[in-house]
């Protein structure tokens, strides 16, 4: 314990030195915590369709994920408008699979305030079921709400919250 202590501390300290842990490299928040739920990229898009938060697994080409998320917004809008005939309140928040590609699947989630959560999941991760995705989105939404509760957060700003980062990291695929 004693010996492990300093080392562990040092390690954690190093990893923590940048407060907003840029994860390992990329913008992605990575969190090895949740082994089951592992997304490859998570993005929060504002109502005006600009990103509030994007984090991807660093090993991949970040740009690719950004592009994927961007293109998925069209699908999101499509789904929203399709469901928009009903009252907004009755609209399902979880949009489900937006579109699959060969390498991964993209899931979407929209809040009542038109804030979109987009999650890119590796296709090879077959263990990931729909309800797990839903739960992940729920967590995202909760965390996002917490951020909104913060009086220092201006809606529309980029999200720099550590707690949010931690939460997203927990959902990202852990790349060791």
């Amino acid at each position, binding site marked *: *314990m*004693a*010996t*492990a*202590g*300093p*080392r*562990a*501390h*040092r*390690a*954690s*300290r*190093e*990893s*923590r030195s940048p*407060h907003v842990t840029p994860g390992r490299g990329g913008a992605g928040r990575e969190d090895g915590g949740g082994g089951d739920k592992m997304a490859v990229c998570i993005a929060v898009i504002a109502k005006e369709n600009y990103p509030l938060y994007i984090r991807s697994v660093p090993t991949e080409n970040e740009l690719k994920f950004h592009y994927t998320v961007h293109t998925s917004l069209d699908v999101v809008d499509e789904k929203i408008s399709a469901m928009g005939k009903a009252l907004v309140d009755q609209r399902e*928040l979880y949009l489900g699979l937006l579109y699959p590609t060969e390498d991964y699947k993209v899931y979407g989630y929209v809040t*009542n305030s038109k804030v979109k959560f987009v999650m890119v999941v590796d296709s090879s991760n077959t263990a990931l079921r729909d309800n797990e995705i839903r739960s992940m989105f*729920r967590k995202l*939404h*909760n*965390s996002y*709400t*917490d*951020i*909104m*509760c*913060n*009086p*220092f*957060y201006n809606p529309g700003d980029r999200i*720099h*919250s*550590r*707690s949010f980062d*931690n*939460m997203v990291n927990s959902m990202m695929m852990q790349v060791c």
Partner: protein
Amino acid sequence: MRGGGSSGAEPGCKMEGLTLSEAEQRYYCDLFSYCDTESTKKVASNGRVLELFRAAQLPNDVVMQIMELCGATRLGYFGRSQFYIALKLVAVAQSGLPLRVESLNTVKDLPLPRFVVSKNEQESRHTALYSSDADNPASYSGVIPPPPGRIQVKKGSVSHDAVQQRTSTDQQESTSPVVSPQQSPPTSPHTWRKHNRHPSGGNNERPLAGPGPFWAPFSEAQPGSSTSSDPIWSGHSPPPHQENWVSFADTPPTSALLAMHPASVQDQTTVRTVASATTTNEIRRQSSSYDDPWKITDEQRQYYVNQFKTIQPDLNGFIPGSAAKEFFTKSKLPILELSHIWELSDFDKDGALTLDEFCAAFHLVVARKNGYDLPEKLPESLMPKLIDLEDSTEVGEQTGEVGYSSSPAEAPPSKSPSMPSLNQTWPELNQSSEQWETFSERSSSSQTLTQFDSNIAPADPDTAIVHPVPIRMTPSKIHMQEMELKRTGSDHANPTSPLLVKPPDLSEENKMGSSVKFTAGNTVNGYSSSDSYASDPEQIGSTVTRQRSHSGTSPDNTAPPPPPPRPHPSHSRSSSLDMNRSFSVTPGQQQAGVVAYPPAVPPRPQPSQGAGPHVHRPVDAEGLIAHTSTSPQQIPEQPNFADFSQFEAFAVSGVNKEEDDEIETHSEVLQVEKAADSASSLRVAKADGRVEDKAPANVPTSAGKGTTPLAPPPKPIRRRLKSEDELRPEAEEHTQKTGVIAAVLASQPSIPRSVGKDKKAIQASIRRNKETNTVLARLNSELQQQLKDVLEERISLEVQLEQLRPFSHL
């Protein structure tokens, strides 16, 4: 391994090949003692050590290197030898030499490692130490004073203190601790000595989470703490002791910090208390709390609570996010950090801060301002209590639950509800916070605000959130209400009361009115027992003298006299003579009077009435007030006197009133009234005496003066008198002034009473006293001026007399 572990006081002892000079040895021993927050005598608290290294102002990598070299990283803790080696390496590094193990012994004449710590820090550290030391309430009180000084736990000072303490505790040396060149010998040494506790108890606890948790795993092996310690430790630097209070922009930072400390301590204490319910928790908390850098001291806590009250008077209520944002924005921390602090402290994520959350947030802000990095997770000591001791509101309960789980891990359980419910609850909470907000705005009363004045005053100039603490200049609501009550009462009692007549000092009049009412009842009593009674004869005599000696027998004689309770009737006369002077001065007087007695403001009996008589006498303002107050009393007595005597009575009563007003300002209402009664009664007696002694001229004069309360009669008389008795102004003024003074003095003794709100009353009375002082000072200056004028007149008259004399003989 632990080299000369235990005693460590051997001069030039060698530890693992480390040769230390005697001074070094002593110094290192002290430092080790300081760092040995758990009095293990073998292991230095990591938190403290880190602070120490930080105080050494070395770059982080150098510190890491030192730690590696000394073997602490290998061991995971700082044993004595490691510590000594580390200190030596610090000295080496500070000398600019490369860090090498060989340099330990080869470098000669190495200066002692310098740990920068400001005096302030030292003081604050001492303070914090003391304050945090629950076992030493006495020392605690000593600590509180300098808010900034608060727990200055910073590095060098901390270590220094620790060193000193060590000295006292471990080595029982009474020599002053080895002070690094840059450190000023802390004054605490003796105090520390008494302390005899290991430093960790006190301020040392303050070190913020970093050292604490970091240290915890080493020595305590507590799961909880280690969990929290790891992230915290890794997060940054040595525990942020409650250092200098965060210097927020606006209001007295010191007060803020000061409050913060107590708050934190309380927080901690509360946490402990709660934990006691659960043994394990308690143990964990207590052990971790010792070195918990995030602990809040009592004074901090108190300050936080006070600040909370300024935003939200209801301690069980919430501070809405917007209000909290404004408040913390004043700390000038970057928004990002504030956002993070918010995330940490808003435990239930409701967008509002409860008292505990607020204290935690404030504490974090202070820590951040002092340079400590923010933890990743909310430290245990800052978590809202499990069982909300204040009787939980729903947030409190939630907080309690969350706090209970206390593993800083997740978002509070309250957050887990499903999205829909969350969405629903959130707006509700928002609404409730809005309601809270409005409530707080409405309910923020002057009362609470005034109470904080004294707390905030001592705040540390260089720290603490400068929160604008309004200092009440106007009478508080309660005061106003009191005055109103009195006033109405008095008004009813005396329809013709001088209150109506008294223009100049509305406030005074108000007071008078209320006091009058009571005085009327207590006339008899007052009369017999009044203190001023004794002085009356003197005054009367002096007044008579004054009146008779136009040539200015000495305004001086009359002026200096002991604070005669009431201005003589002559005063009124003289003052009335000098219309110009009075007019010019009176308004000022009146205004002063008004200002002087803000508490009495509410009922302004009759500005118009006072105008007449008051105009004459600038000095009379207060006297007039007295008049009005006593007028009610006078009224019943008036029938006893002849017309002139009535006037005199009024004059006296006016003066009495004035005194009464003053009395009221100074003391509780009841007391004031009684004093007023006595004063008025005395005046009445004086008036009687005066009437008898004085010529009719005098009487009218005094009557005019006294009849201030009675608007119509006095005015004409006054004017007449004024023309007649120009020489008296100063006498009257003097008398009045003395009367005022007497009234003030008379009121002093009676001050103490008020039953319920001692503190508030005291503050109010202090305020009134000050105001009275100002008024009296003005009075004095005016009287002096009038005195000079009168003297000049006298001289001119004498000259004329001289010129006329030869003619008369002829």
